[in-house]
């Protein structure tokens, strides 16, 4: 078993909003190994940001304990802060400082210099170096993200916390960003990343599916897919609305979600055939259907897990 980088035990956190208690994290137990990309997957409001902020020692949990790189997040936070890199969801570098000034400032704040750790950011910084005299505020979204990553890396942290780093970033930049993370992982860094995008989950070594402050499952993306019970079908028709109505009425169907241009239908029986589904739909007056059995994606698994809870 690989060495442990993060260990959470019974972490709880709630916020009080107008006398209503909102539970953000409900008994979180988690282990993250060194040099892996650990993904925290879940919809908005699942508690991803709260968990990251607790692990980055920015907020205190109500109860429970957590250790990051051997440092207790509550008591050893000063020591911990030298070991972590944190990139918040919102771009939070100085927009009125230039790219270079931002980088030098953050290096200096962590008692290091850009030269000392240039090898870590070299690949990423190369891409934005042409803009180094431009203010950070004048950069495009993807560029800002790269700069933020550079600033989070400049003090050579052993673990990197990324809170929804690709939200609001274009598709090409997202792919590039994940390539960078893989490269960092190869250099031995632990990466703890949260994302609402299910397609990014398969790029992680292990993922935790999170919903309403609870962790539903922790496993590798392929294991998650194996855990899917029943069969999954993708259906397409020109009458999507009627198709959906008909499927929801059918007692043999467990779940039916629209998934882009098709509907993903989960059926718990292992041996249901394509003909049976077609026949049922014909009885309901829907012909011209495109039907296909498919392998579940992480999102399908997540939907199923959410349903069960």
């Amino acid at each position: 078993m690989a060495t442990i980088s993060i260990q959470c035990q019974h972490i709880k956190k709630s916020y009080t909003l107008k006398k209503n208690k909102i539970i953000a994290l409900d008994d979180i137990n988690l282990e993250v190994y060194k040099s892996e990309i650990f993904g925290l997957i879940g919809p908005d409001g699942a508690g991803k940001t709260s968990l990251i902020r607790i692990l980055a020692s920015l907020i205190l949990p109500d109860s429970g304990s957590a250790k990051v790189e051997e440092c207790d997040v509550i008591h050893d936070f000063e020591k911990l802060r030298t070991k972590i890199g944190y990139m918040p969801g919102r771009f939070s570098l100085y927009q009125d400082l230039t790219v270079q000034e931002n980088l030098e400032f953050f290096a200096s704040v962590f008692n290091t210099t850009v030269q000392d750790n240039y090898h870590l950011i070299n690949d990423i910084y190369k891409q934005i170096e042409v803009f180094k005299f431009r203010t950070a505020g004048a950069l495009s979204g993807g560029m800002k993200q790269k700069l933020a990553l550079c600033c989070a890396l400049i003090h050579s942290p052993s673990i990197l916390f990324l809170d929804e780093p690709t939200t609001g970033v274009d598709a090409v930049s997202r792919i590039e960003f994940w390539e960078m993370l893989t490269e960092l992982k190869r250099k031995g860094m632990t990466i703890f990343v949260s994302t609402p995008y299910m397609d990014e989950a398969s790029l992680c070594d292990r993922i935790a599916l999170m919903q309403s402050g609870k962790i539903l499952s922790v496993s590798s993306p392929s294991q998650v897919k194996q855990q899917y019970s029943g069969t999954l079908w993708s259906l397409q028709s020109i009458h999507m609305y009627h198709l959906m109505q008909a499927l929801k009425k059918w007692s043999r169907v467990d779940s039916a979600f629209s998934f882009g241009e098709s509907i993903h239908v989960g059926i718990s029986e292992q041996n249901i055939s394509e003909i049976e589904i077609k026949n049922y739909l014909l009885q309901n007056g829907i012909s011209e259907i495109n039907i296909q059995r498919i392998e579940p994606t992480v999102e399908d698994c997540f939907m199923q897990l959410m349903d069960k809870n």
Partner: protein
Amino acid sequence: MRNILTIIRKEFSQFFRDKTNIRMLLVMPAIQLIILPLVADYEVKNIKLCVVDHDHSHYVNEMIQKITSSGYINLCAYENSMDKAMHLFEQDEADVILEIMPDFEKNLIRDNEVTIGVSINAVNGPRASIGGQYLQSILGEFNREIRLKWIQFPKFNPVPIIKTEHSYWFNPSMNYKHFMVPGILVILLTMVGANMSALNFVKEKEIGTIEQINVSPIKKYEFILGKLIPFWILGQVVLTIGLIIAFLFYGIIPKGSIALIYVFSSFYLLAVLSFGLLISTYVKTQQQTMLISFFFMMIFILLSGLYTSIDSMPKWGQVVTWFNPIAYFVKVNRMVIMKGSGFSDILPSILSMIAMATVLISWAVFNYKKRA
């Protein structure tokens, strides 16, 4: 220490990046110091006089001429009924009504005594009382002239009288600008210092950059001092600009030592800057900061002794001024610039500033939480 320098360097590069900041820093104090002392004037001028004359005699004419020749009072209406005059009062077209009864001249000559009515519009308090006093002293003068004309005074006064001769010290010509300029300078310094530092700190909260500072190993006091020192330096720059303007435009040269002013402003700026930072550790947005510092500025300015004397405030008001940094600086500035006070004279004020600065900085450092 190295961390503090890092933050100071960052603050300066941010400050000078935006040209508006520089313009604000240089032009704002200049314009205010050049224009405000010209209008913030204690003298009451252009008092509008309405005469209601029921007599139409030579003496009335002479009296009105005497009044208007003072330069402070302008005759703006000459009516024959009190009703019309009251109407002017209501329209705010007259400040003072002088009512002259019929047979004014006759009674004056026959009985050696006459009564005239003076009505003063007291909506504007200070203007009414000062205007009334002017009118009274002019009428007294007029009275003396008549008596001089009619009676031959004996060589020696039959009754002993005490004659007063007065001279104004520290401001011989009673030039109110010498009095106002040092005060306005203080307010400028406070605005620039407290507001700019507070806004700067809250901006980091608003745009989220403080998160990155919070996860860094920077110490709380290092961050607070790193925020404070740049504005301390800028404050001294504003003070220098102000003193230069005071000299160039009003010819004000401090009677005391200029170094002493800087000694005091050093501690003063520490106190007001940490006050600004303290506010910003409590609030979330720049808007809140603006409103709260506006609230305090109003109180501080009105209780500073700049416009109204602290000695004439009620006791509790005077107690409040003990906690008002502006009051100390207004006092010290006037003492050093006008009176030429020395170090030992302002030492109590310096000590008060040190106490205030210590409390406020510690409070701000304490209240700035690097995590919630």
